[in-house]
């Protein structure tokens, strides 16, 4: 059998005395949607940061698509097919929606030492950007300044930017956080539509979203993954129930 798309072994990161991730092992096969859940402060966002290449691990290694990427920075990992969204919406606020996505296309179409031709007139950037915007349901918002989009739309825009890089792996840090019911249902539909076509690792507190989307779930507590399994297995796991006792989430 082929190696899983993501292989993590012994990944650790401490901030001062706090072990944000502690010898994390995780395999995510190609095509899987894998949710990471756990109480606040369990180290989920740190794990995403380490996967994306923003945080250097103190120990451990990450393999992506058969390649050791432990020492590679975020831009290099992006070019290898790793895309992410941020916990706090991160977009180019003073550019239009289509500019945001066109920038993501541009970042993946060779170097940008081109000084003469207006980038906004390049159909090779514009057309794919508009197509991706359409696919996430923002087709009619293309020329709106990103700062002026509604919160839910900005989250969709982040997904669009990630998709525009044609990723093999999508890292999503709380994609439905702060959304109203309708917005979050739209986002879950959007992500559900990607299932199988792209491998997804998502951190999420919204259990409806997690159990709707995830093929497998890992539960993180105090920097460690204490259980990994199908939604049913995780739901029935006694240790997981103990960890969540008194927490905001109910399984």
């Amino acid at each position, binding site marked *: 059998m082929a190696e899983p798309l993501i292989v993590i072994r012994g990944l650790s990161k401490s901030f001062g005395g706090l072990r944000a991730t502690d010898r994390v092992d995780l395999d995510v096969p190609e095509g899987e949607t894998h949710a990471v859940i756990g109480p606040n402060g369990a180290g989920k966002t740190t794990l995403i940061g380490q996967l994306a290449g923003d945080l250097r691990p103190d120990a451990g290694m990450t393999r992506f698509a058969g390649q050791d990427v432990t020492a590679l920075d*975020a831009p290099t990992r992006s070019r290898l097919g790793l895309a992410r969204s941020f916990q706090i919406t991160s977009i180019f606020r003073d550019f239009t929606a289509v500019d945001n996505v066109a920038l993501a296309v541009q970042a993946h179409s060779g170097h940008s*030492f081109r000084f*003469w031709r207006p980038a906004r007139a390049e159909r090779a950037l514009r057309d794919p950007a508009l197509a991706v915007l359409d696919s996430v349901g923002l087709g009619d918002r293309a020329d709106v300044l990103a700062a002026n989009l509604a919160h839910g739309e900005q989250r969709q825009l982040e997904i669009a930017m990630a998709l525009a890089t044609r990723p093999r792996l999508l890292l999503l840090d709380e994609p439905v956080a702060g959304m109203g019911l309708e917005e979050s249902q739209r986002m879950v539909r959007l992500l559900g539509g990607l299932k199988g076509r792209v491998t997804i690792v998502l951190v999420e507190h919204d259990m409806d979203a997690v159990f709707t989307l995830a093929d497998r779930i890992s539960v993180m507590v105090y920097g460690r993954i204490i259980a990994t399994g199908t939604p049913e297995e995780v739901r029935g796991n006694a240790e997981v129930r103990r960890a969540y006792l008194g927490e905001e989430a109910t399984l």
Partner: protein
Amino acid sequence: MLHRSRTIVMAVGVLALALVPPAAAALNQPFYVDLFRRMMIFALAALSLDLVLGYGGMVSFGHAAYLGIGAYAVGILAFYGVDNGFLQWSAAIAASAVAALVIGAISIRTSGVSFIMITLAFAQMLYYLGISLETYGGDNGMPLRTRSQFAGLIDLRNPYAFYYLVLALLVLFLVLGHRLVNARFGMVIRAAKSNEPRARAIGFSPFRYKLVAFVLAGGACGLAGALLANQTEYLTPEFMHWTRSGEIMFMVILGGMGTLFGPVVGAIVLLGLEDVLSALTEHWQIILGPFLVLVVLFAKRGLFGLLPGEVLRDG
């Protein structure tokens, strides 16, 4: 993308600049040719800073260093009898671009206050280097032996020829700048200014693009320095003093960051006010200061930025 009102103001502005020499001649005030030429030279310096500051988000507080290097390149070559302008000006551009490469390679790894302090420190180092160069006049500076020679193509001793050369260069750099900031290259540095973590996450490595922008701006400002040496026919370390860097930065902010033409407006307004107010009173800075404070308070996007058009905000 330029909004129509900005295009009109730019066209009128350039036309007005083109009409300064005949107007000055008609009014029998040749002094204005000199003044406006000086304004345009500083406009070129401010325009180059705008690429770094307004589009790249790099608060370079040592931009006068390149002005000084450009001027000294011309002055030192002239000192040794090399009057050829092609050679002098190429040397001015190359020397300041190399300096920008070194300064940028170190400073662009930092951001915020560190970046400001490093660029400022380098510029002050060069200022003191200029003071220590006794051969070239030390802190008194030295006169330029003769204006740059262009093999008879153009005679800079003719104030009108010199004026229109500066105007042509300014327009050329406005066009080049406009192409550059809207091309792929410009989109990268603007994206990095807007949100660097996001730019990295989609696959850009902003460092080398910012560095190239820094070097291009340094080279362009070096050319402004070469022009300034010819303008004043004298060079002094004062060209590189930090207050000069501050002045150039103020031109950018006053006219409007991230607009290219704004810094041109800023240079003309600032130097124009200096000229008008200093004729009224020797305490002219007391009037200039509050005016600048008011502009910054009430026209955050600068004078040119008040016109409708593309909005470039921070963050």
